[in-house]
């Protein structure tokens, strides 16, 4: 993947496929360390599946026999000296509280760190594709933060879809403005 934000898009898609009602994507920067967390309340995975989930030759897909989403994210993290962990509680194990959390740590000063890229585009693409699932996006540096919570937006929008062109545009501008403010 050319940008880390594309890995985020790819791996977050799994959360929607798992039937999540809420997906949280968070980026946290402390010094040279960037922590990415993708958390959902979807169906989760059993311990058996969890063991093989970063194996490129395991996939739930039926169109072909390899699944590269998590292995690629793990590679992107490990090549900077960081790593990736996946925690999951399946619906079978705990019907009341289940879901998956993927955490990846990157060292941003490493030569092989993939730049984050267009994360705003990743957020709008996720919302456009899944307007009925809530997304909480946060990006925190040591002093500042960017935040978008579609639950708050849906309260205003009522039955107008988050996928409406004007709404997506508003979200894009809203995030861009926040990034401009912290990059000043």
């Amino acid at each position, binding site marked *: 993947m050319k940008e880390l934000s*594309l890995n985020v898009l*790819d791996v977050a898609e799994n959360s929607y496929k798992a039937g999540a009602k809420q997906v949280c994507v968070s980026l946290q920067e402390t010094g040279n360390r960037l922590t990415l967390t993708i958390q959902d309340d979807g169906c989760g995975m059993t311990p058996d599946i969890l063991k093989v989930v970063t194996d490129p030759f395991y996939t739930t897909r039926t169109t072909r026999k390899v699944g590269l989403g998590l292995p690629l994210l793990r590679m992107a993290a490990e090549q900077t000296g960081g790593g990736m962990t996946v925690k999951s509680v399946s619906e079978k194990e705990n019907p009341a509280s289940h879901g998956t959390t993927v955490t990846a740590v990157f060292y941003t000063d490493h030569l092989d760190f993939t730049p984050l890229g267009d994360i705003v585009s990743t957020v709008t693409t996720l919302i456009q594709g899944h307007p009925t699932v809530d997304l909480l996006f946060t990006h925190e540096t040591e002093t500042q933060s960017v935040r978008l919570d579609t639950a708050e*937006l849906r309260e205003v929008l009522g039955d107008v879809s988050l996928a409406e062109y*004007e709404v997506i545009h508003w979200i894009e501008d809203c995030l861009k403005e926040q990034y401009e403010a912290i990059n000043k």
Partner: protein
Amino acid sequence: MKSLAELQAIKDKMKSKVVLREGSEEIRVVVGMATCGIAAGARPVLNAFVEAVNESGLAEKVTVSQTGCIGICQYEPVVEIMEAGKEKVTYVKMTPEKAKEVVEQHLKNGNVVSKYTISNNKD
């Protein structure tokens, strides 16, 4: 800063259109957004479709949606266009520029851009 009041205004504007739009969507544009598609550049292609469809005033009859792996990863980014009563058209190795052309030629004027379809791009 963007305010929620602005979003409220968008809502009020959209509300009046909602009733009118339901069920009037005749054409579906589906962009493959699995690992293979994303790695090959599907994100800007999807965004180009969303933008061009709206800018050409086609939002009433065209919906742009995302799907997983279609199974022809070597041809990604892949875009399928489904229209009631017509055969499905599969565009391959798409770019944002090609997407704009497809919106203009195919979605707006009804002419399939055959130079980008899978049948004309088999290796």
